[in-house]
């Protein structure tokens, strides 16, 4: 029963890695959004350092969202989605497989790149570990909630703009807890804090529940 999910995971991962442009474009987008901030705000290093965590998180959300918004598009277009529905593996598991493959191929590189890109914002590189850790804690929520958006906007007009309008409000807790967890870690040196627990809880809940919502939406879309 798990075999289709594993196969799907392998296929998605290999496709994504073979097409390096997907990851490259996402990182490029991330880089550009981050670079725009100083261009717009001026080079005051102290100001940039203060806003760096928030900017890195916001840009990550935008990059990840626009990338994951296409998660089901190609499968829908070539009819693979209909075939997937017929497999004996529950659609929810297949969704999780796709989410994990997309995370490894796209979101993980973004997160690893974040501290480096943060240098453009005078981000304290000593906090790189904390930044990556808190982003990883929020990554399941980002991917899972984004996948719901992908499933909802599959056949909709204005897909890119629409998914942002739908999903960015749902990203607010991830954003707030993520930045809060980072500043707690930076200040107290202790990784565990209320915000981090909330973030982990949200991620866990999203990872468990979102596949059901996404699968339901996919079933509705494929009739």
């Amino acid at each position, binding site marked *: 029963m798990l075999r289709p999910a594993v196969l799907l995971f392998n296929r998605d991962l290999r496709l994504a890695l073979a097409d390096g442009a997907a990851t490259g474009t996402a990182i490029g987008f991330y880089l550009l959004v981050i670079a725009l901030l100083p261009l717009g705000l001026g080079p005051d290093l102290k100001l940039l350092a203060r806003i760096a965590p928030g900017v890195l998180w916001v840009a990550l959300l935008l990059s990840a969202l626009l990338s994951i918004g296409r998660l089901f598009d190609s499968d829908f277009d070539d009819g693979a989605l209909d075939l997937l529905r017929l497999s004996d593996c529950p659609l929810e598991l297949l969704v999780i497989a796709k989410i994990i493959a997309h995370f490894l191929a796209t979101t993980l590189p973004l997160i690893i790149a974040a501290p480096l890109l943060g240098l453009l914002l005078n981000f304290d590189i000593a906090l790189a570990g904390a930044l990556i850790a808190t982003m990883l804690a929020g990554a399941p929520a980002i991917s899972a909630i984004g996948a719901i958006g992908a499933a*909802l906007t599959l056949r*909709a007009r204005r897909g890119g703009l629409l998914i942002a309008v739908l999903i960015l409000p749902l990203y607010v807790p991830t954003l*707030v807890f993520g930045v809060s967890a980072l*500043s707690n870690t930076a200040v107290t040196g202790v990784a565990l804090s209320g915000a981090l627990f909330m973030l982990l809880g949200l991620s866990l809940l999203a990872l468990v529940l979102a596949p059901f919502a996404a699968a*339901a939406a996919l079933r*509705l879309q494929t009739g």
Partner: protein
Amino acid sequence: MASLTQKLANPTRFMALSRWLVPGFAIAAAITLAIGMYIAFFASPPDYQQKHTVKIMYVHVPSAWLGMMGYAMIASSAFGYLVFRHPLADVSAKSLAPIGAAFTLLALVTGSLWGRPTWNTYWVWDARLTSVLILFFLYLGLMALRAALEDDTLGSKLTAVLALVGVAILPFIRISVEGLTIPSLGIDIKPWNTLHQPSSVLRSDGPRIHSSILTPLLVNAAGFTLMFFAMHLQGMRNEIMRRRVRALQLAKVRRAGAARAELVEQA
């Protein structure tokens, strides 16, 4: 309660019932608001600290309550639609969205106008105003999704899914924006705006509710709620009629097509 929703499940019966409910609620709303506004303007003392601007609260707070109530109603309608396939649930959800969004927008605007004399700024990222802003975004999302889908049925079902997803994340949104403190459990999550300390200290509690202020507040809240119900029911009537018009137009076209096919055959 279940049998009430069952009774109202029949669109024909709903139309017959709502024909009287809409004007009934509307008149009740008008009377209640008239009383409420009279008390607010002529019988309510100025607040010690906020002078007369506290009168804004009489429209701001009910608007916020109704915005939240509207979304809760959308979520329960969505549940009824997806799980119980209640025939009028989607009609209810669709007509709720613009009304709830309007009240949420009013909460934001009146909140902003209240903020200006109180805190000297038109917008302040106060925890509760921020929550209302995000609620407004959730409404926009629902309306945007429905508008972006050409297939009406698909739009109804996907919007219902989105509404339920929104309601599931809502507790997290509230906690992240407004914080959560439960000392007995050792939970202390600061609201987001304490992360970035504003330069001035804002009193975001609002005025303490005094009975002379509470009365006009409750009366106006009741009046606006009655108005909400009247608008919701009328919106549902409109949607039911719209669907019927479309169905009849389709039947008309089909009949004309069939008649033409017969003529061609006879010729």
